[in-house]
């Protein structure tokens, strides 16, 4: 009403762009076919601060530079594909809002540490999943298969409830300074998934898993730095789970 001269279309465009901000994304790029060195590259884009970092990465990949490479599947914090180091902390790009990162400053995005970078934000997850496989993350039972479900009381289920939430995004393991060094340490994620079965009343291989984690590169290498608990996008109390495995090992022995 007050600006009747303004074109309707122009006004709509202005309203649509009103909530957008200009944010700089400083992304760690690496392409072994171009250079052996990784380098930072800045992208300035217009984006709604209520969007997530993953949306920004999409915008860059789809509209600015199609060679930007990263993993993502569900984009809703369940599949665990897009763990990356955002502003120096391991987070899921799909659960991190841009407005929470003080977007007036450049937002750094790089691959998670401790695993070999294959390209841009993609790392080789094999050592991570190897450690996961090594702790036997599956139900082990003896005797006949029951004809119905294996029953469990609510209290027994509660015992390991926290560690069932793991999505294997590797945010914890790749934030662990002990894992960074030689990668032989099982890492928080593998121990969390061992915990999930060790304390399951239906499972019968707790002894075997404890024996695996009792080894040189097992739980005793944990330095209780709490990096894993801070990094976990699912809020699992990772360090506590590791401590519970340690306690189980000690009480089993004495």
């Amino acid at each position, binding site marked *: 009403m007050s600006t009747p001269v303004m074109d309707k279309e122009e006004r709509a465009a202005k309203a649509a762009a009103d909530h957008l901000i200009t944010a700089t994304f400083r992304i760690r790029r690496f392409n*072994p*076919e*171009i*250079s*052996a060195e990784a380098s930072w590259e800045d992208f300035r884009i217009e984006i709604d601060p209520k969007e997530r970092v993953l949306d920004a990465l999409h915008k860059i990949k789809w509209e600015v530079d199609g060679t930007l490479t990263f993993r993502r599947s569900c984009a809703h914090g369940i599949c665990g594909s897009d763990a990356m180091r955002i502003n120096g902390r391991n987070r899921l790009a799909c659960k991190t809002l841009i407005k929470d990162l003080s977007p007036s400053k450049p937002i750094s995005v790089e691959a998670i540490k*401790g*695993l*070999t970078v*294959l390209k841009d934000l993609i790392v*080789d997850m*094999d*050592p991570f999943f*190897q450690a996961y496989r090594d702790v036997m993350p599956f139900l082990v039972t003896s005797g006949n298969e029951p004809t119905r479900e294996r029953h469990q009381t609510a209290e027994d289920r509660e015992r390991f409830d926290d560690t069932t939430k793991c999505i294997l995004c590797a945010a914890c393991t790749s934030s662990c*300074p*002990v894992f960074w*060094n*030689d*990668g*032989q340490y099982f890492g928080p994620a593998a121990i969390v998934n061992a915990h999930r079965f060790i304390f399951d009343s239906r499972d019968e291989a707790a002894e075997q898993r404890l*024996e*695996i984690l*009792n*080894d*040189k590169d*097992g739980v*005793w*290498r944990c*330095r209780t730095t709490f990096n894993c608990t801070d990094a976990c996008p699912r809020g699992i109390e990772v360090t506590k789970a590791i401590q519970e495995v*340690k306690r189980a*090992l*000690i009480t089993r*022995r004495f």
Partner: protein
Amino acid sequence: MATDTETTGAGIPTDDTAGYSPDSPAPVIEPPRARTARTPKSTRTNFELYGWLFMRLSGILLFVLVLYHLLIQLVLDGGVTKIGFAFVAGRWASPFWQTWDLVMLWLAMLHGGNGLRTIINDYAERDNTRMWLKMLLYTATVFTVLLGTLVIFTFDPDIR
């Protein structure tokens, strides 16, 4: 898995790497942390468990031992100026202080040695570095413990 990885350390591209194509691909980057045939096998001992437990228990004991040691040596009764040959000779005349110092020596050396061992394990990047650092550490630990024990037991106040 991952036992079929061969090291291709020499093939890492430098600056002049343009011109890779499907026919001449860039060299494969080997994961440095893959579990290979050379990865040590599991040991199935409780060494790390006992080491971890020892650190906790000896830490509690050392807290008391060292604190009282420092209090007696440096604060009470005239402080540090009173320490001399006669003071040490007088203390080691008592089996109580001999035992105190012996326990403190052994616990402190093993506690510190084990702590340094874990630090070396955590921070040494190459197997050779790690091996030599640990050898140095073990030698120093054994030497100090043996020398200290020898002195405590063979201390002669009448030496001249």
